[in-house]
């Protein structure tokens, strides 16, 4: 299990190793064809800042070689915002007094139909809070069953599950799981996640092993940028985690997400660090140079302008026209959003912008028959 590997990696030593990377380390990393985590540390370090354009060019080259001039498009669907956790930064926080929704079957289907009217989406990401009693595995399984007639590829972003539960959901057509570790800093993790199931660090970090053991096709990982001041150390831990998973669960495809928090204007949780566009660009390029195959996903948290510029340079999956409140596609109720969407363009507008920079949006890149064969 990865928790044991993580114990062996010292946070502070890693932080100082990144800070002491030199121009020579960066040059060496840039000239290698197979990079290790040490090289990744050089590329995300301040020493690599003067190499940003070189990194962009390499990232562009590797991405186009491996993925072609395409962007895999997906749409997230929040089916419930009920949640028993108390993550200090999240809009679904248990003590937030706003009304909670668990979509009924009819409402879920209405959402599916509404999404299909926006664009030919075939990659669906079902999102929930953590409420196993009222919106647990049977509820998610039902939502997957209902989605099959509408979408070719079903992923979930829900609480960490057991190996058997992941396996069970694959029998309902689920072939991908996204789960953000949020932070790999074990001690501080509990400051951000003080109560509920989510406060159990090892259960979450070993969830990726359980997904691998269950034979999940695609695993999405993420660090929430804004929690740990030393975000470079945090993403380095994720790079170690990726290498570990690739070695153990080699039939699985992995993706990286770098959700970054912005300062909130109406109070609430303020991020401990704010990552600049330039830093996110450097991190994106470094990730692609480190691993030519890993998917890099940008959500609508990012602005339209930034997404358009970054689209050819390393990003391989994007969402569009996302609503982060349950029921948001069919109707537009004033309910609770998990986070604020920055890129508010329609899927059609995003499509046109991607084509404008020479990238073809791909809607369907999976077929349900692959999932059926497993069963």
């Amino acid at each position, binding site marked *: 299990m990865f928790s044991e590997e993580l114990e062996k990696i010292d946070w502070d030593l890693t932080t100082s190793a990144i800070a002491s990377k030199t121009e020579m380390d960066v*040059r*060496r*990393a*840039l*000239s*290698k*064809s*197979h990079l290790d985590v*040490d090289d990744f540390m050089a590329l995300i370090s301040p020493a690599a800042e003067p*190499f*940003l*354009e*070189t990194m*962009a*060019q*390499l990232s*562009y*080259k590797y991405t186009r070689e491996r993925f072609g001039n395409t962007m895999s498009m997906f749409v997230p669907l929040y089916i419930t915002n009920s949640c028993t956790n108390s993550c200090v930064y999240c809009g679904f926080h248990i003590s937030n007094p706003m009304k909670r929704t668990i979509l009924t079957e009819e409402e879920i289907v209405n959402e599916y139909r509404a999404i299909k009217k926006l664009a030919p989406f075939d990659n669906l990401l079902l999102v929930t809070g953590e409420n196993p009693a009222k919106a647990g595995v049977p509820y998610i399984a039902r939502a997957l069953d209902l989605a099959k007639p509408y979408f070719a590829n079903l992923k979930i972003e829900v609480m960490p599950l057991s190996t058997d539960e992941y396996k069970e959901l694959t029998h309902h057509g689920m072939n991908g799981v996204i789960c953000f570790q949020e932070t790999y800093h074990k001690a501080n993790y509990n400051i951000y996640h003080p109560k509920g199931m989510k406060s159990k660090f090892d259960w979450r970090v070993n969830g990726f092993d359980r997904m691998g053991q269950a034979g999940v096709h695609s695993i999405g990982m993420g660090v929430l940028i804004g929690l740990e001041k030393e975000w470079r150390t945090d993403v380095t831990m994720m790079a170690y985690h990726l290498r570990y998973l*690739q*070695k*153990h669960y*080699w039939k699985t495809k992995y993706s990286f997400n770098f959700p970054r928090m912005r300062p909130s204007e109406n109070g609430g949780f303020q991020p401990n660090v704010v990552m600049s*566009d*330039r830093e996110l*660009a450097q991190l994106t390029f470094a990730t692609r140079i480190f691993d030519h195959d890993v998917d890099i996903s940008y959500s609508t948290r990012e602005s339209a*302008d930034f997404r358009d*510029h970054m689209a050819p*340079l390393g990003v391989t999956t994007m969402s569009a026209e996302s609503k982060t409140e349950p029921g948001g596609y069919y109707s537009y109720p004033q309910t609770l959003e998990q986070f604020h969407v920055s890129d508010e363009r329609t899927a059609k507008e995003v499509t046109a912008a991607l084509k404008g920079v020479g990238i073809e949006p791909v809607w369907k890149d999976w077929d349900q028959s692959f999932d059926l064969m497993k069963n």
Partner: protein
Amino acid sequence: MDKLIIAGKEFNSRLFLGTGKFNSNDLMEKALLASGTEMVTVAMKRIDLEDKEDDMLRHIVHPHIQLLPNTSGVRNAEEAVFAAQMAREAFGTNWLKLEIHPDPRYLLPDTVETLKATEQLVKLGFVVLPYCQADPVLCKQLEEAGAATVMPLGAPIGTNRGLQTREFLQIIIEQAGIPVVVDAGIGAPSHAAEAMELGASAVLVNTAIAVAGNPVRMAVAFKNAVEAGREAYEAGLGGSTPLFEASASSPLTAFLDK
């Protein structure tokens, strides 16, 4: 230099030797000792299993050398499992270099039968080191079947052509959770050093030493090359692709300056 560990056993040397093709057993023994090797493979077909004083075996057995019987000559999994059990009894070791090459011309390993035999032999308690194609997927499958190492080929046996499979070896090494021993095709010390620089755990050499003008000196040359290559790998090599220098105009990142 890090120690190599296979199936819990430590090795100081990362050079494995084969024992065929020498023109005398005396010369073979001298080469083995000069190379510093601690792992030597021998074809069970070459040994008279009835004769406890077999001349070839007598020249191989030394306390610091792990004997690695191989199944060279078998053509499928069934024959390999049978031969392995014979070898275990005769040589008194459960270590086995699994070789299944039905094709007598290029001696290329049979992927399907090798995987099948590995699964069976592991269940029978063998420490299995399979000779195999430089096929990254196969190597992961052999690992999952319980192989102690994988031994992908650099080039066909005896060709001395070096690392023709270099790209695939790199992927195998990157993905492996068990030691990767580059076997077959290594024709010169520079090839051995190259394999070690890539991050291979060890190399197996036979023909290049056995048929050298002076096999004993060539054994020393390989010993030095393997050590140099490993040392370079552990020290952290610089990259080899020329750095792609950005032009002054920063066409891709200028938007960040706005």
